[in-house]
C-alpha cells in the first residue's frame, strides 16, 4: 500500500514534467483550424480524379497508403490469434457444460433476430459503400460481427457455438487477411509495384469506383468480421465458464 502511494506521489512531478514538455511542443503547432499540410490537400485534390472515390479517406487507407492498412489488418489478425492462444490455456466450456441456453424467452428471440437483421444490414451497407460515403471495411466488419453475434445469442448459446466455431471462422479470417496480401502480390505478378491498383477507376460515386480499392475493402471487412467474431467467441466462452463455475459453486 505504501509502495503505491509513493508511486502515485512520485508520478505527479514526472507527469508534470512530461505534460509540460508536451504542452511546450504542442504550442509550436499552427493554431487550430489553420493547417496547411500539402500532403492532405494534394490527396483531396487528386484522389477523386485519379481513383474516382468520393471518400478520400478510403482512397488513402486502401490505395495511397494501402500498406499501412495491410499492416493494420495483420495487427488485428495477430492479436486475435494471440488472444485465442492465451485464453485457450484456461480451458474451454463445452456445450454439455451449459445446462440450458442463456436465452429462453421466445419473444426475446424474435426481437433479437429482427434487431440483429437490421444491424447486419447496416454493417453490410457500411462496408459496401465505404469508399463512396463514410464507413468502410473496418467499421462494416465490426458491425457485421456484432449483428451475427446478436442473432445467435438471441437464438441461444448452442446456436452461437455453431457459428462461432473456429472451423468456420479461421478460414474466413485467413481468406480476409491473405486476400489483401494476395491482392498486393497480384500487382507484383502483373509487373507493377506491390498493391498497385490493377483496375480502372470506374464511375465516381458508385460501387464500381476505385478499382482494387473495392477488393481490398471487402478483404478487410471479411477479416475484421471474422476476427471480431473470434474475439467475441473467446470472451463469451470465458463468460460462460464463469457461469458454469458459479453454478458449480452453489
Amino acid at each position: 500500500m505504501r509502495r503505491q502511494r509513493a508511486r502515485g506521489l512520485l508520478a505527479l512531478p514526472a507527469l508534470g514534467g512530461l505534460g509540460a514538455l508536451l504542452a511546450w511542443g504542442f504550442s509550436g503547432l499552427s493554431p487550430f483550424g489553420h493547417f496547411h499540410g500539402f500532403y492532405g490537400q494534394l490527396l483531396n485534390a487528386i484522389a477523386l480524379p485519379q481513383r474516382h472515390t468520393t471518400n478520400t479517406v478510403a482512397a488513402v487507407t486502401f490505395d495511397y497508403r494501402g500498406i499501412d492498412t495491410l499492416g493494420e489488418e495483420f495487427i488485428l489478425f495477430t492479436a486475435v490469434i494471440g488472444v485465442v492462444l492465451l485464453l485457450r490455456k484456461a480451458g474451454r466450456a463445452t456445450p454439455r457444460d451449459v445446462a440450458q441456453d442463456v436465452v429462453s424467452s421466445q419473444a426475446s428471440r424474435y426481437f433479437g433476430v429482427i434487431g440483429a437483421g437490421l444491424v447486419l444490414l447496416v454493417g453490410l451497407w457500411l462496408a459496401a459503400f465505404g469508399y463512396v460515403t463514410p464507413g468502410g471495411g473496418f467499421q462494416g466488419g465490426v458491425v457485421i460481427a456484432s449483428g451475427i453475434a446478436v442473432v445467435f445469442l438471441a437464438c441461444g448459446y448452442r446456436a452461437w457455438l455453431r457459428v462461432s466455431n473456429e472451423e468456420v471462422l479461421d478460414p474466413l479470417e485467413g481468406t480476409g487477411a491473405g486476400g489483401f496480401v494476395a491482392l498486393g502480390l497480384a500487382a507484383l505478378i502483373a509487373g507493377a509495384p506491390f498493391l498497385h491498383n490493377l483496375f480502372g477507376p470506374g464511375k465516381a460515386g458508385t460501387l464500381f469506383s476505385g478499382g482494387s480499392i473495392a477488393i481490398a475493402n471487402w478483404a478487410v471487412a471479411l477479416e475484421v468480421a471474422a476476427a471480431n467474431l473470434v474475439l467475441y467467441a473467446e470472451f463469451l466462452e470465458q463468460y460462460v465458464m464463469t457461469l458454469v463455475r458459479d453454478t458449480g459453486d452453489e
Partner: protein
Amino acid sequence: MAWILPLAVAAPLLAAALLVGSDHVAPEHFKDAIALLGSGTATVCCVLVLLQSERRDVLHWFGGWRPTGGVALGVSFVADPFGAGMALLASGLTLTALAYSWTYMRDAARPYDALLLAMQGAMAGFALTGDLFNMFVWFELIGVAAYALAGHQVKELGPLQGAVNFAISNSVGGYLILIGIALLYGRTGALNLAQIGHELAAHSADRLVVVAFTLLVTGLLAKAAIVPFHLWHADAHAVAPAPVCAVFSGAMIELGLLFVARVYWATFEPVFPGPPIRSVLVVLGVVTMLVAAVMCFLQRHLKRMLVFSTIAEAGAILTGVGLLDPTSLAGAANVVLSHGLLKAGLFLVSGLIVLRLKDADELRLRGRGRALPVIGMLWCAAAVGLVGVPYLGVFLGHALLDDGAGSAGIHWLQPITMVSQGICAGTLLRAGARVFLGWGAAEDELLTPEPEERVPERSAFAPAMLAITGVVVALGLAASVVPGLERRSEAAARRFVDHAAYAARVLRDAQQKPTPRLPYDVPRASPASIAYGAGATVLTIAVAAFGLWHRRLPDGVRRAARRSIGPPVDLLRSVHSGIVGDYLLWIVAGTAVIGAVWAFTLT
C-alpha cells in the same frame, strides 16, 4: 529487381494467413511446409536485396505512387545495406526459430508459427520502411505478436508478468512515437522520412521539432532496452520460449536502435547540432552498459542473465549510433550482426539445457551439465565470442567502435565498454563452468534468488536442434573474419549518413553514385583493438573466477566490499521490481528528463 523488396514482408504474412486459414483442413506436413516456405522465401529475398543494395539503395514505392513534384504520395521501402542486413538478420533468426521449434514446440498450438511469421514480416517492414507512420504500424505488429509469444507458454505467474509488463510498457512507447509523428505531421504535412527532413531543413529547429524528436527517440529506446526504459525486457525475455527469446534478443531490440539512427540521419540531421544529441545518446549507452553488466552478474536464472547481457550490448550499440560518425555506426552494425547471432545461439543453447535438465537455474544445475559436453562447448564458445577476443565474434564491431570513439576524442568510452563486456562474458562463462564443469560453490548469496519454475515437459528431436544451434553460433563466431565485411560496412555507413543523397534518391529519384566494388579481404586489426580484446579477455577470466570462487577471498576483504558496494547494488536490484507501475513511472520520468536536456541544448 526492386520488386523483391515487398516480398520480405508479404511472404511471411501470407504464410501466416494461410496457416490460420487452413488450420482445420490441411495436413500437418503441409502447414509445416507453408511456414518454412514463407519464412525461407522472405529470407532469400532479404539476401538478394542485401546483395543488390551493396552498390546503391533499392527503392520501392507501394502502389506505384512515386513522388510527384517532390511530394511523396505513398509509402516507400528503402533498402540500404544496413536496413537490408537487419531485415536479413531478423528473417534468418525467425527462420531458425521456426526450424528449432519444429520439434521443440511440437506440442504448441499451431498459432505459434503464425505469430512468429507475422513478427518476421513486421520486423522486415520495420527495417526497410522509409515512412514514419508505416514504421509505427510495424512497431505495433511486432508488439502484438511478441506479447502473445512471450506470455503463452505456461500457466504461471512469471510468463504472465513478463508479457503484461511488455505489453503495457511497449504500448506506452508506441504512444510517445505516435505523438511525435503527429507533431511532425502538423509541422511539415509529411510522413516520409526524407520529406519531413526536407521540410524541416527550411527552418531552424524549434520547440516542436525538439519535442517530436525526443518522443520518437524515447519510444524507440523503450523498444531497444536502453536504461531506464529497459526494465520490462528482463521480465519478458526470461520467460518466453527459448527460440522466441532468440528473436527478441537477436533482432527485435536492435531494430529500435537501427531506427534511432535512421530517423536521425534521414530526417533530423540537417536541423540539429550534433554535440547535444551525441552527449545524451552516449551517456545513455554508457549507463545502460554499466547497469546491465552489474545486473547480469547478479543473475542465476540463465535466460535472465542472457537478457541483461543483451541490454549491455544494446548500450554499446547505442554509443556506436550516438557518436554520430560513420566508423562508429559501422561498428554498431557489426556488433548487431555478430552479437545477434551469438546471443540467439546462447538462447537456443538455453532451450537445450531446459529440455535436457528441466531447469534454468545456474546454482541448481551445478555440475549437472557434465553429461552434455557438446551443449556445454556451444555455450562457452558463444560466450567467448561475446568477449571481443581478436578476430572472434564481436571483435570487429568493437574494434570499429574503438576507432570511432578515438577519432571523436572520447577515449574513456572504450575502457567502459571493455569492463561491461568483460563482466557480462565473464558471468556467462561462470555459469558455463558451474553448470557444465561443476566448478565453484553450490550456494552464492550474491545472486538473486528466483522463484522455482516448473519447466514444461516436452520431447523433442535434440540432434536437429543441436545442429541448428551449432550453425548459428559458428556464424556468430565467424562474423569478424568475413572477407570484405569491414570495408563494406564502412562504405554502407558512409552512405547511411549521407542525408542529401538519401533525400535526392527518395524524393527526386536521383541516381546515387554507386559504391565502388570493394576487395574481399580481412584488414589487419589495429594494435589498439588488439589491446582492447586482450584487456576484455583478462577481465572476463577474472570476473568468471571471482564469480565462482569469491567465497575463498579473505573475510576482511569480503566484509569491506559488502559494506561499500552492497547498498548501491541493492538499490539497483530494487529498481528492477517487476511492477509495471514502476516501469511506467521510469518511462515518463526518463522522457521528461531527456526532453528537458534537449530543450535547453538543441534550441
